[in-house]
Every structure is written in structure tokens, then in C-alpha cells.
């Protein structure tokens, strides 16, 4: 008996899946993963997933971008080579700041957006040449797949899943 055995229960409706997830959770089984073809609202809460902190990272990336922009405009325009352009000399960063607002804004957005997306790709392990890990190709079409690890309770789990409206139940060895 291998400990790497998992049950794959397939569903073909998001509402039935949600009820099934709740039922499995109520029976105190651990749901390893659910693969979906589209976002199912409330699924993360039902599965007990922690909320994502990506929005918080975006805020800090934005602050970083703003700081870079402040430093860049100050260093190039005020410190390194101050010029008198169109009768408007560059005395101090504060007095020139209004002219830098577009740059401050654009770099804030640039850093926040790109670094957040890169963080998302890294955390969710998405990059070119990465192999897909959904166990069944139907999960990007119209099927939902719930993966539950088996710990010697295969028959009990199967019986429970039968009652939740699964269209297919497979026991597979995960490598």
C-alpha cells in the first residue's frame, strides 16, 4: 500500500463541486487540490485556502517604483547635471517636483504592475517551457477535479464522493 495514492474525483458543474467541497471538508478530509477550468467564486474559502497577499506586494513594489523615480529625477536633474531649461533653472527637487509628477506616476505603476505579475508567475510556477500539471486535460475545458490523498481509507472516501455527484472517481498513484 503506497502512501502516494490519491483519489481524483471529477465533476462537471461548479455548483455541484462547491457542495462536494463543503461535504468533504465537513467529513474532515484534507483536499489536496482542486483543478478548475475557470475561477469558481468562494472555492478558496470553502477549501480553507489562506487569502493571497499579492495585492500587498503590489503596494510595496509601487512604493519602490516611486522611490526610484524620486531618486532618478533628483539625481539626473538636480544633483548630477542641473540645467537651465527654458528659463526654468533646476534649483531643488521640491520646486521642480510638479514637472516630475508624470514620471513619478508612471514608474510607480510600472514597478507595481510588473513586479506583482512576476511574483504571481513565480509563486504559481508559471513560465515558458514549464510543463502543465493538471492531471486531466478536461480540467481546462468543462471538468473540475478534486484531489484527495488516501491514507488507507480508500473505500470510505470513495463512498463519500459517490454521494457528492462526482461523474468519475479514479484512484491513482502520484509520483
Amino acid at each position, binding site marked *: 500500500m503506497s502512501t502516494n495514492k490519491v483519489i481524483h474525483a471529477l465533476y462537471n458543474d461548479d455548483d455541484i463541486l462547491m457542495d462536494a467541497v463543503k461535504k468533504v471538508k465537513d467529513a474532515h478530509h484534507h483536499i489536496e487540490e482542486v483543478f478548475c477550468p475557470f475561477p469558481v467564486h468562494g472555492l478558496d474559502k470553502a477549501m480553507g485556502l489562506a487569502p493571497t497577499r499579492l495585492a500587498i506586494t503590489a503596494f510595496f513594489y509601487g512604493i519602490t517604483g516611486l522611490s526610484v523615480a524620486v531618486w532618478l529625477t533628483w539625481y*539626473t536633474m538636480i544633483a548630477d547635471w542641473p540645467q537651465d*531649461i527654458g528659463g526654468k533653472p533646476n534649483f531643488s527637487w521640491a520646486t521642480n517636483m510638479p514637472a516630475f509628477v*508624470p514620471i513619478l*506616476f508612471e514608474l510607480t505603476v510600472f514597478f507595481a504592475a510588473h513586479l*506583482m505579475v512576476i511574483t504571481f508567475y513565480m509563486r504559481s*510556477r508559471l513560465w515558458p517551457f514549464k510543463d502543465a500539471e493538471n492531471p486531466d486535460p478536461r480540467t*481546462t475545458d*468543462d471538468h473540475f477535479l478534486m484531489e484527495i490523498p488516501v491514507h488507507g481509507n480508500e473505500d470510505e472516501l470513495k463512498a463519500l464522493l459517490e454521494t457528492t455527484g462526482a461523474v468519475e472517481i479514479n484512484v491513482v498513484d502520484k509520483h
Partner: protein
Amino acid sequence: MSSHYESSYREPLVLGNKSYHDITEDIAKPIEGKANKNWYIAFYISLAAMLWGFGCIFYTVGTGIGVWGLNKNIGWAWDITNFVWWVGIGHAGTLISAVLLLFRQKWRMAINRSAEAMTIFAVFQAGLFPIIHMGRPWNGYWVLPIPNQFGSLWVNFNSPLLWDVFAISTYLSVSLVFWWTGLLPDFAMIRDRAVKPFQKKIYALLSFGWSGRAKDWQRFEEVSLVLAGLATPLVLSVHTIVSMDFATSINPGWHSTIFPPYFVAGAIFSGFAMVQTLLGIMRKVTNMEEYITRLHVEYMNIVIILTGGIVAVAYASEFFIAWYTGSPYENYTYMSVGAATGPYGWAFWSLILFNIAIPQLLWFKKLRRSFIVSFLISIAINIGMWFERFDIIAIVLSKGHLPSTWWRFEPTFVDVGIFVGTIGFFFVLFLLYARTFPVIAQAEVKTILKSSGENFKKLREENNEH
């Protein structure tokens, strides 16, 4: 079913008796099938135009900007007109996917993918013009703040032209990332049903190994929301900054404080018109009639009336202020009696006709729900918005402060060729996109099928669930 409730008074957004699998089939069909004759005809015409444009670009770069119709007073004309026109067109895509996402507008889901593709391709075209106009495009990297061989001479951050560099590159790159992130689940869908090994490899590469875990979807939705929040002010900032290229100058007709909001409204106006033009054709060619419905067309037309109204009010106030100043210089701005009766009167009246008069037809419900009328009006707006930029630039520059500086601008075949070339390039990209990319965000459409699908609405009605 109760979690998918939507009032039965709302018109369905997905027509026909669809299941999740039907949506997959419909979106994958144009990619898996073969292109028809019309596609090839359109593609070769666009390709020819593109190559002609590239030829004109090589001629310009090889010989010099002198091959354009510019002269000592009109140093900006078709190139910047085309630049602003393309940037404006590039406004609808991210507006649809970002602003409408924040407002939770479900109708965006059928059109956001193509509108964003249009945005990205249009911004490519826009970006070409300033680079060609440099004359020495291999020195284009001088616009970047990098240490260079002149010691520590830096770019000028006080200049609106440099703000433009930052605004447009941020906009292009963020739009591209937003678009691609949304594409991952749809590429994965194509990958998982592909039968040809080569096709499977390509879509596996494009999908970045998307697997659709619950956690991935949770992050995906959060990232989409935050990107929408970031992209919303970004969209508005881009054309604001483009308008500052003019508004911060001291030419009468350009030095105008209403330019930023007025340019943004104009950009959305022209962007939606171009979406209307493209989708009017695409829904037929790729058989997406049940996803891009009359209702979508009507909603877009309503946005066009609103933004077109803002533009019309801006024209009216520019015209009034030019007259009210009593200054003879103001009498030659693009919105003035002088412009209406002068040598560029035809351009002035084209603008009034295409941009103000014709779009008013959309007040009639019957007309704004008609595919063919919407298509024709959208073409009129595309032309009108080109004239707006031409008028602002060429008319204002053609009448300087001294009568001895009064010149006219005549485009050469090179000016025309490059413009036609960018239109060809744009359509080449769009046609290739329509054959190889999932043209509708199918994962998102599946989330609204139960609430806004026609068959599910009927089912609820039969069960008396109102």
C-alpha cells in the same frame, strides 16, 4: 443555481443553448480550423500595404525627413497626427478590461481580449512614428536615462516628450502583461485539446504551464483586480500626457488647459469606434455572433455617444473661447471662424461632419442596435478622429504669428505610404491574432454563463425563479 441569479429583465449576454463545453468548442474552432479565402485576401492586401509602408520607412531613413511634406513652419504633421491617432485607438482595450472590470460590467468579457489585442497592435504603430521621426532611429536609445558617452548628460525630465516615452512604454508593457496573464488559461485550454504535436508544443509554451489550481485562480483574480486598479489611472494618464505635448507649448490653439480631459475622451471615443469596426467583421468571420451580440454593440455605442458628447462640448468651448478672446491669433486655431473659412476649411468641416454630426444618429435605439449602421458610423468616427488630430496640428502650424510664416502642408507619397503601411501592419497583426489566439476570454465567459446565458435565463423563467 441561486448563486448565479440575475434579473430576467436583463438581456442575455451569451445566446443559444450553450454548455461549458460548447464555449470551448466555439472559441477553439477558428484556431483549429483552416482559414477561408476571405481571410487570405484580407491578409495579402494588408501584407502588401505593410511592405509598401516599410519601403517608405527605409526611404525616409535612408534619405532623410526631407522626403516628407514638412517645411520650416510645419515641422510636425502626418507623423504626429498618425501617432496620436494610433495611441487614441489604443485606449479602448485597457479601458474595457480595466475600468469595466472595476465596475463589474459582465459584457466586457466577450470583447476584452480582442480590444486589448487591438490596443497592443495600435500602440506598436503609434510607437513607430516618433522613432522614424528621429531621422536616426539607431540613436533612439538616447530617450532613455542611461549614462552615455557624452559624460553625464541626462534626458530632460521636464519635457512632455520624455513623459510620453515613459507613459507609452509603461502603457504598452503593462497592457501586454495584463493581456497575457488573461490569456494563460485560454492557451491552456487550446493546449489540452490540441491533437497535432507541434500545435500542442506551441500552446504549451504560450500557456506557461497553466494548470488551473484553486490557488492559481485565487491569485489570478487578485492580480486581475489589482492590475485593473493600476491600469485605470494609467489609461487616463497616457492620453493626458500625449495632450501635454501640445498643451505645454505656447502656440495659440495648442496652449489649452482643457486638452487633457478632452484628449482622453477623444481617445476613448476613437478606441471604441475601432473596436466596433474590428468586431463587426470578426464576429462574422470567426462565428462569434452568439457571444458578441446586439447588446454588446449597443453598450459600446452608448460609450461612444457619451465620449463623443464630451468631445463635442470641448470643440464648442474651444471655438467660443477663440472667438471671445478677440485675438487675431486665436482666429486661426483649429476651432475658429478662420479655420472654418480658410484653406483648410474642408478639413474643419470633415471633422464636424464625421465626429459630431454623424455620431448623433446613435441616439436612436434602432440605429445603435443595428450592426451595419454601427459599423458604418464607427468608420466615420475613425476618419473624424484622424481629422481632429490633423486639424489641431496642421491648421494651427499653418498660420503662425507673422503672415510671412503662413505655409501649407502637402503630404508627399512617403507620408501617405507610411500611414497606409501602419494600417496594413495593424491588420496583419490582427488577422494573425484572430487565427491563432483565443479571441474571447473563454474562462471568463464560462463564469457568467449561468447568470447571463440565454438558456439558463429561460430555465429560471420556467421554474419561476425571478
